[in-house]
């Protein structure tokens, strides 16, 4: 962790490189990536192919692509291009806590409110080829907060990182984490309800029932308004409740549910509960026993976002197997592999590769686990997840085959702009070090030994 931290601080300034570059380019710029092996994911692999990027979109893909004379040409001979990687479960770039764990239902809190566009992990994950991430609330409560889907547009503001038009979502959590039986509260603090799996189900059911009531109240109000036709003297709308508003959106199918889960029984429980309330679970997250109930997950229409080969790190993960992704895929579930970790997110390509070893997925199927499948799960597959004409030019150039441990990410495009460029990054490192030294000297000479005062919020990164 320490090494990582140090590494990160070295890299801290590097992103300004890419920022400066990004600023220098209008999204209207035309770029031709030439002579690459293009793994489109949805339309096969093209050897010695080219991609034309125009206005931030993929304008053409193929063996022969005609480019305007003023196009910037990037020669990718011997290199591979894949769609930008999508991490369906991430907790990077969040300020002030990933969990609002105080209450059992916190549907009113929003990751979007606390995105930290300066989190160095954005840049690190970008350097691993991730271009889109689903930033989720933690799993401390049965119903957590609202997630935010972001593009890793390093250097931009939090608002500018939001994936425009991505449907809103929310975190649910089942099992050990929300029941919190493995967490000791400080002495004297009573345990938060719920404490059992029964209780978790009850809390969700109760909250959704409350949300139904809330919807009825609003429907009644709207009907009254419609009936009065103008005379609204004694009518006021019901009180807005941000928690119930979010849950009402779930019930109306307007908000995607991403449910943290492990065991087969709790997965089935939530499927039954969702069907009873008439909505669909968008993704089961972790879902390590998903292979046991893959048919049921597929029948419900939920996606599954799992780990490649993590198991036994907690009691509910004992039955995990590395064939999970492959088995669920074969049973018709849309499966993705996620990181749940700022560190692992840097090599999700290798996580995908494991699904070939374990379970024998094809290359395209394996790559889909970190590209088009998570895009489908987040309902953004019309924009990202594959290399197709008309989609966002979110692309990664690897030095070699993305499933090789020897391959390195060389360039990452988002919306047709370069946000990571390994060469530029390396070239700037000495400069960054020099700037740091200069600043340190400058600060040393200015600071007389004094000042016991409160620091304005200087958040160390990566805490």
């Amino acid at each position, binding site marked *: 962790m320490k090494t990582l931290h140090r590494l990160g601080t070295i890299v801290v300034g590097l992103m300004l490189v890419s920022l400066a570059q990004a600023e220098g380019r209008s999204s209207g710029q035309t770029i031709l990536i030439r002579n690459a092996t293009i793994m489109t994911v949805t339309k096969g692999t093209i050897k010695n192919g080219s991609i034309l990027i125009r206005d931030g979109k993929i304008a053409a893909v193929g063996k022969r692509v005609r480019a305007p004379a003023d196009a910037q040409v990037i020669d990718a001979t011997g290199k591979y291009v894949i769609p930008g990687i999508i991490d369906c479960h991430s907790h990077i770039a969040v300020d002030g806590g990933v969990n609002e764990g105080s*209450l059992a239902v916190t549907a009113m809190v929003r990751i979007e409110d606390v995105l930290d566009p300066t989190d*160095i992990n954005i840049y690190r994950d970008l350097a691993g080829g991730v271009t889109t991430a689903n930033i989720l609330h933690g799993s401390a409560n049965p119903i957590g907060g609202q997630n935010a889907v972001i593009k890793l547009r390093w250097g931009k503001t939090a608002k500018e990182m939001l994936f425009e038009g991505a449907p809103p979502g929310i975190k649910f959590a089942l099992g050990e984490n929300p029941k919190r039986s493995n967490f000791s509260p*400080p002495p004297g603090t009573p345990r938060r309800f719920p404490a059992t799996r029964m209780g978790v189900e009850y809390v969700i059911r109760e909250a959704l029932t409350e949300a139904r009531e809330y919807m009825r109240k609003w429907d009644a109000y709207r009907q009254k308004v419609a009936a009065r036709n103008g005379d609204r003297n004694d009518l006021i709308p019901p009180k807005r409740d941000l928690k119930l508003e979010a849950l009402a959106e779930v019930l109306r199918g307007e908000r995607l549910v991403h449910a943290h889960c492990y065991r087969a029984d709790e997965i089935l429980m939530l499927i039954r509960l969702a069907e009873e309330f008439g909505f669909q679970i968008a993704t089961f997250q972790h879902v390590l026993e998903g292979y046991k109930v893959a048919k049921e997950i597929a029948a419900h229409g939920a996606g599954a976002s799992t780990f490649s080969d993590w198991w036994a790190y907690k009691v509910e993960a004992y039955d995990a197997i590395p064939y999970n992704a492959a088995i669920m895929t074969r049973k018709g579930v849309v499966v993705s592999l996620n990181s749940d970790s700022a560190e692992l997110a840097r090599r999700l390509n290798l996580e995908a590769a494991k699904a070939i070893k374990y379970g024998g997925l094809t290359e395209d199927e394996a790559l889909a686990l970190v590209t088009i499948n998570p895009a489908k799960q987040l309902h953004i597959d019309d924009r990202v997840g594959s290399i197709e004409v008309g989609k966002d030019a979110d692309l990664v150039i690897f030095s070699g085959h993305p499933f090789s441990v020897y391959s390195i990410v060389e360039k990452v495009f988002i919306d047709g702009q370069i946000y990571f460029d390994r060469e530029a990054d390396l070239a700037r490192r000495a400069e960054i070090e020099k700037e740091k030294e200069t600043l340190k000297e400058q600060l040393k000479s200015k600071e007389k030994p004094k000042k016991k*005062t409160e620091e*304005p919020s200087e958040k160390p990164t990566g805490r």
Partner: protein
Amino acid sequence: MTRKRALSFVSITCLNRFPSRMSSAVTWGIVMGLILAVVAPVAYSRGPLIYAIKDARIVTVTHGVLSKGTVVLRDGLIEAVGRRVEIPEDARVIDGRGLTVYPGLIDAHAEVALRLPKSTGRQPGGASERSPRPPTPSKRPSLHPDRLAAALLQADDARLDKFHRVGITTALTIPRRGIFIGQSALINLAGDDPARMVIRSPVAMHIGFDRMGGFRTFPGSLMGVIAYIRQTLYDAQHYELAWNRYRRLKRGVRRPAWDKALEALQPILKREEPVVFIANEAKEIRRAIALADEFHLNAIISGASEGYQVAALLAEKGVPVLVSLNFPTQPKGADPQADVPLRVLRLRARAPQTPAALYRAGVKFAFTSGFMDDPKDFLANAAKAIEAGLPEEEAIKALTINAAEIFGVDEQLGSIEVGKIANLVVTDGELFDEKTKITHLFIDGRQIELKEAPKKPGAAEEQPTADASGTWELTVESPQGPISVTAVLEQVGNKITGTLTSMFGTTNTEGAVSGATVRFTATVDVQGQSMDVEFEGTIEGNTMKGTVSVQGQGEFPFTGTRPQKGAWL
């Protein structure tokens, strides 16, 4: 001098009242007692209330600089100012040759002269409730929009001297921490009677982003805090709707419940009162502005150490800024070997550029002491802002008229003009020159005694009479029950270093001993959130007791013993 005269007047009067047969000792005792009774609560002189400072350089701020002029103060107001001003016969005359007169400086955001409610600690609600129903944030923690700083004033704050020493005569005061913190008051920093200190109240609503209690109390995360603020403001909007309907119809509708908090929030929703948000980093400033936009609030940003990054946005939104002169620096006791991220180094180097950046962007801004306990660097740091490109006269405005304008008191404060409040700083040189000394200070037309700062930093502290070295077993009485803390301390001179070990892990601590009072601070990681804790206690033999204040949690008592003093050494 004035003061001496006043004193001798008192003593003579007293002496005359007592027959000479009383023993001189008794007489002296009574006299001294009376003197103390009269003088003790008064931080300023009891001299005549008419002053004339003549032949001084006068920086009026709003009407240029008079190279040689006279200011007359009478009954707390500026009676006259100009090149040729008749000096009233009854005025005490101060020879202003070689001196410069400025308006009294305004600290645009401080926590001063306040009697803070003891232990605003955690409130019931959230996780601590055992309920079959999922707990809801109905208990509304840290919801004090109805709290008026003006009602919490105390005139005898010992810290006032520290503000006077740097020429601060006026401050916007409000408790610092919380969520819906309350409404600030602009006060003059002198007076016997808190009620007479107030220039304007309320000035602004203060909303902070302090989390409550991790996993125990809602809101335990920053996103929880923001959701809570948002929900509360929606509640306040609905409250107004409901009451309006009731006031309109009177019959046929049940009356809504009266709610002091939601009532107090109405002026900000109607834009009759601005809202001050503490926000330092660019992302925090953007967040605060987004929140203000969502509810159409009149926002003021306080802090803004990274304001240089968002000057254009602030200008576009017309948001005034209260720039903290407590610029970020390397924390005391930081590991010198630590690899500080470039972003942090840049912030430290560039924070002083914020005022110049705001000025160039056309943002109205004033300076604050940024909650420095002792604002002794107030002027020195303003000078850093000048060094970083802020024109000097703009720095003076940021210390005077700008704050007055932002707070809506520019008719009565912030410049040297006839009829304004007689708050003046008199110096023997340029305000921002390091060598300049403040020679006189007037607040409400009264001369304030400038008590000299202790010679050396820390010299004000008493010599330690206790040795804190050793391993202490401390017990903190938290509302959730006792928490054991092992403090391993080493004292050298009056400085303490060591470690604190508790259920939250082990952290380094440092502090100081003054007399038998020991203070040490640490940053503790509580379930992923870092909280500042400060122990303050007294040592008696091998026992220690006092209070520990935990950031965002309040103050709790602690006691402890030192089983084997220094055995580990």
